[in-house]
């Protein structure tokens, strides 16, 4: 049971960005992808989620054996993929509570309704983990949110939707240390033998709080190195300069 990416190539406006990505995230594991700017990390997350700016030229993405590249964005989500955005969009006029509820409702068979009492109970308990104010439910999705509030909101949605595979795109960017700790608490609470987690990050700092099982280095559209959590520390110390030496073999 895993999210498997095989030899994935993707273009944006005819420019190749992903040039043969191979990666497997089994359930129960936490993987981190690090790499310099422009290496294709964020593109990978959007391609998995199904953003139509990207044209997939070859390769496959499968979820527990099922190819998902033919599915629409919302179908992939309901199949179990969650993407915590680096820059979450604003949805003016739609309250957080209604938004999350609509997302949960979309997972129910036609004619079935969310139980409002149980829903709010669940929502509040998860907001407590993330130390979010109750007023948050009535605010429009991401509108006027600070960077930290947006990231917390992503984690809240992730907790509410209970996905099988989570992709966190630079969730640590723009967070102060206190907010980072809270977000990490939420993500750690999500760690489970039934869930795979992929974190995309620039900084080792996040990995102090969410310990990965594996660290991958991405460069120029490929995974170029894979190691344990100690790899992140090495990168922190020596940076990505080693990439230029050409002394690496593909993972």
């Amino acid at each position, binding site marked *: 049971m895993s999210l498997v990416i095989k030899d994935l190539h993707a273009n944006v406006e005819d420019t190749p960005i992903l040039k043969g990505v191979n990666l497997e995230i089994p359930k129960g594991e936490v993987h981190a992808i690090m790499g310099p700017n422009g290496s294709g990390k964020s593109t990978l997350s959007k391609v998995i*989620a*199904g*953003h*139509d700016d990207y044209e997939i030229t070859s390769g496959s993405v499968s979820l527990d054996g099922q190819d998902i590249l033919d599915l*629409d*964005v*919302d179908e992939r*989500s*309901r199949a179990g993929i*969650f*993407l915590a*955005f680096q820059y*979450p*969009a*604003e*949805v*003016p*006029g*739609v309250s957080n509570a*209604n*938004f*999350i509820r*609509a*997302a949960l409702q*979309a*997972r129910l068979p036609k004619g079935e309704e969310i139980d409002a009492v149980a829903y709010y109970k669940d929502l509040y308990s998860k907001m407590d983990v993330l130390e979010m104010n109750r007023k948050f439910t009535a605010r*429009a999705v991401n509108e006027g949110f600070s960077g930290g509030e947006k990231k917390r909101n992503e984690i809240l*949605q992730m907790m509410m*939707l209970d996905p099988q595979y989570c992709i966190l795109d630079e969730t640590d960017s723009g967070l102060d240390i206190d907010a980072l700790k809270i977000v990490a608490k939420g993500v750690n609470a999500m760690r489970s033998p039934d869930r795979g987690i992929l974190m995309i990050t620039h900084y080792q700092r996040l990995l102090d709080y969410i310990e990965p099982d594996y660290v991958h280095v991405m460069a120029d559209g490929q995974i170029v190195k894979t190691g344990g959590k100690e790899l992140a520390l090495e990168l922190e110390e020596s940076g990505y300069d080693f990439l230029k030496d050409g002394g690496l073999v593909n993972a």
Partner: protein
Amino acid sequence: MSAEATIDQETQNAIDVDRAKGDFHFPENHKFDAGVGLSTDTINYISDVKNDPDWVRAYRLKAYETFLSKPMPTNWATEDLNNIHFDEIRYYLADGQKPMRNWEDVPAEVLETFERLGVPEQERAFLAGVEAQYDSETAYSSVKEELEKDGVIFVNSTEGLKEHEEIFRPWFGKVIPTGDNKFSALNSAVFSGGSFIYIPKGLKVKHPLQAYFRINSENFGQFERTLIIADEGAEVMYMEGCTAPKFESTTLHSAVVELVAMKGAKIQYVTVQNWSSNVFNLVTKRGLAHEDAEVRWIDCNIGSRLTMKYPGVVMKGERARGEVISIALANDGQHQDTGAKMIHAANNTTSNVVSKSISVGEGRATYRGQVLIPKHLKGCKNNTECDALMINSNSKTDTYPAITVRGNQHVTQHEASVSQVSQEMLFYMQQRGISEAAAMSLAVNGFINDLVSEFPMEYSVELKRLIELEMEGSVG
């Protein structure tokens, strides 16, 4: 229409879904039929059937002349108006019955019509009085007994002008003169049905009064005439709804609505317009607000082929307030040409216009606003906000605000915005598992959310549902 040809059948079917509720009709069963076309004979026929007093007949005939003398306003409005063929319309269709006080007495098919539209049910649930118009005349009219005892008058225009001439006549045609525009003149010539309401001094009517306008016949024009007078310190909310079956030919709905709020009175007029897409909806609405009075128009236009409607408030007394809150949704094949008219005619008067329009596909939304503050006044305030949301690149939206402020002792504020449901917003919502159609509908409901809360609860629920249905049809 060319616009309709560009959308596929599936989309078309989905767009029509919301009108399924109103899209049925019964065979015609009219005792009185003024025939096709318009002439002085038509007007005399209507006056004869209605047994009009002489002054009303004279008023109609004079209005007919005014109608003939006025050109179609295509110099500023859409050319589509030229597709109204006045000589092919039937101007009066009625069965000759007086409005009934009990639903049991209403003819079976008329009763069934209004039951299918949920009118009697709503009446039981939350209304203080109902008037239900079927083609030219009112089929049912009833107001709660205790309101009648308090002196509230809620009847149709025919009964109003005959039985309550002393209150009716001084205000009739005074807020909107016959010659205001070509369609107000047409209405003044052939009007029938509509409400006459009088709320006595100091009486605050707690529950809304409602009128429901139903067109059952083809090639027909409905010309109701409404006059609402709230005496000093009185308060009332009036709601109107309307539907028609979808016929091949065009149908004309051209109403005139006049509101008079005496000193300190408050009138709220709520419309949810959901005509079928063959209806030309050309309506003139204006309120007169005396000292410390308030007139609010809360207006939602979802249906029709072309709507032209610019509710207005003339603030005649000091500290009078006028407000227009409007929502327009223009889907494929539709043009919503709406706006507001605020005429400040006394010191320290305040007006507020908030308009939100949504254009989908080939749909077109136009905002036309007029705010007039003359030089000799002081302390007047106007706030105008118009926001447009466009869904897909074919949509068209135009804004024509005209704010004329003379003198420097006033405060005016104007804000306009045009936004799109962005790809990034849709991607975000879809990534949460929400389908494209549901995401669209969430975005649209979010856009108008603050205005929907201005509608009475029962209407706002209906409104959200209608918009959801419209949006389901708007995405491939």
